[in-house]
């Protein structure tokens, strides 16, 4: 079946998407060096810089979060594939400063390898860079072996709080401690109802039987078990938030941040209905929905489904979540 996507040359897709992205957000972001996405108005050099890397095809992630209060530089890779170490090293050199650089890395094979090699080179050059790994996908059940947990949409709240801390002038060690505290207290579970097409190869990613949903879908729809008949929004919300609360050990009186991340073709309407279901399930447990957000933050082309993110928040994390940011994909005033 021919792919129904508005693209030109598959080999030039990333260049073309970045060109349009910058045109659409010209006051906020710009391109530097070898397709590095940087702020149009750089942060003062006496503050910690926050950098990330990741495959393309997940728009607005990750480059959509470059801007005041979040990222300084994003290194976009090829479609669904991490950039190589040379460009990440280039970004680290560009971001390097006395205050330090925080590199946020999602736990995927290629991303981690690239980051590790870039970090080794950064060390050799004497750059002041520290790394934080996000791995919060609970479809791999064990917290004991976090290396097997994939990094999903949770990288964004981590970037949000670390970015806010950096913007406030907090030192690198404190930015890291904040990022890691949220990372330890967050969990994500994904559900898929329909698959997606790889926009340059035309290959089908993940197939979901007509009447089913798959709980535990990965970022590119890698199957992860949990196939079951399609349920209502409330039932699905309850299955997922229960699993997340269970993983987090959330109990009555805890403050939760919940994020519903539509991954492509699940409508905002559905996301809102699901969020309502989350509220009902949390009310029944006496857990407070302290903050909630719904929308398309990290997508997988036209895949149907969503990622549900939950985190146990303390006062400082909530304040950093509420702090202003001004990026193409997220604005907090």
């Amino acid at each position: 079946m021919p792919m129904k996507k508005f693209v030109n040359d598959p080999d030039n897709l990333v260049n073309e998407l970045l060109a349009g992205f910058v045109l659409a957000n010209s006051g906020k972001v710009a391109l530097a060096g070898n397709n590095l996405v940087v702020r149009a108005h750089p942060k003062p050099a006496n503050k910690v810089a926050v950098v990330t890397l990741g495959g393309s095809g997940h728009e607005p992630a990750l480059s959509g979060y470059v801007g005041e209060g979040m990222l300084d530089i994003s290194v976009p890779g090829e479609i669904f594939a991490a950039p190589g170490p040379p460009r990440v090293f280039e970004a680290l050199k560009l971001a390097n400063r006395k205050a330090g650089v925080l590199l946020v890395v999602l736990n995927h094979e290629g991303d981690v390898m690239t980051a590790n090699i870039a970090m080794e080179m950064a060390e050799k050059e004497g750059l002041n860079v520290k790394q934080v790994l996000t791995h919060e996908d609970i479809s791999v059940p064990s917290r004991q072996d976090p290396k097997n947990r994939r990094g999903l949409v949770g990288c964004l709240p981590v970037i949000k709080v670390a970015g806010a801390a950096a913007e406030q002038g907090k030192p690198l060690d404190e930015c890291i401690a904040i990022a890691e505290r949220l990372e330890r207290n967050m969990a994500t579970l994904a559900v898929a109802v329909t698959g997606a097409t790889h926009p340059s190869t035309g290959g089908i990613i993940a197939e979901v039987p007509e009447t089913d949903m798959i709980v535990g879908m990965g970022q590119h729809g890698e199957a992860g078990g949990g196939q079951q008949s399609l349920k209502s929004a409330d039932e699905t919300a309850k299955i997922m938030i229960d699993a997340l609360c269970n993983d987090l050990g959330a109990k009555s009186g805890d403050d939760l941040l919940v994020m519903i991340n539509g991954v492509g073709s699940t409508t905002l309407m559905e996301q809102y209905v699901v969020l309502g279901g989350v509220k009902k399930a949390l009310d029944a447990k006496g857990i407070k929905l302290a903050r909630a957000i719904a929308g398309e933050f990290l997508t997988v082309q036209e895949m149907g489904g969503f990622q549900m993110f939950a985190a146990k928040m303390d006062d400082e994390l909530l304040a950093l979540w509420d702090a202003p940011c001004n990026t193409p994909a997220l604005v907090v005033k």
Partner: protein
Amino acid sequence: MVDYNRLVAMVRAAAAQVRANQELLSKLDSHGGDGDHGTTMARAMNCMEKAVEDDQSSSLQELLRSIGWAVMGVDGGATGPLFGTFFMSMADAAAGKDALDANGLAAAFAAGLAGVQKRTRAQVGDKTMLDALVPAVDAAQAAADAGGSVKDMLRSASEAARDGAERTKSLQARFGRAKNIGEKSIGQPDAGASSVSLIFQGFLEGVTTHA
């Protein structure tokens, strides 16, 4: 002996092999992966050839290092770091040498493999590139130990890589994206192992034509 020019011939032949099989590699990757391995490897080979063209050094170490760095820059997930590390680690083993005999080349391959194994926890049997690379490097060493020529050694290595890649057909993926499809990954050879096999076939062709 493999001197600078012969290494260039080997690398170019490897690139040609991979490019000729680009579609097959992507097709293999579409069982469990996201179907872009052929495209990524073809881009990696283009980067590699560009590095060869741009290299002014006439030093084996510099050439291998440039190739490694170029392959790493391919922006293709784990493929660039793994294949790039192979060449960069080979470069370390070629330091200060104008040419490699069978033993020297086998040692460089072994160094390349050791570099790759530092980057991944995958083992032989996990249905990855290591299922071709480990037997190829072992066979290269055995042939060199037996006093074989560079050509004999590369013939053994490429046969071992091809057999290793072929054996991945019956394996279940335990690494990379394909592990998520579990038993469904059985029946097709691994794309990464197939790429390793193609590269070693190219190396053999390169030394054969550039005698």
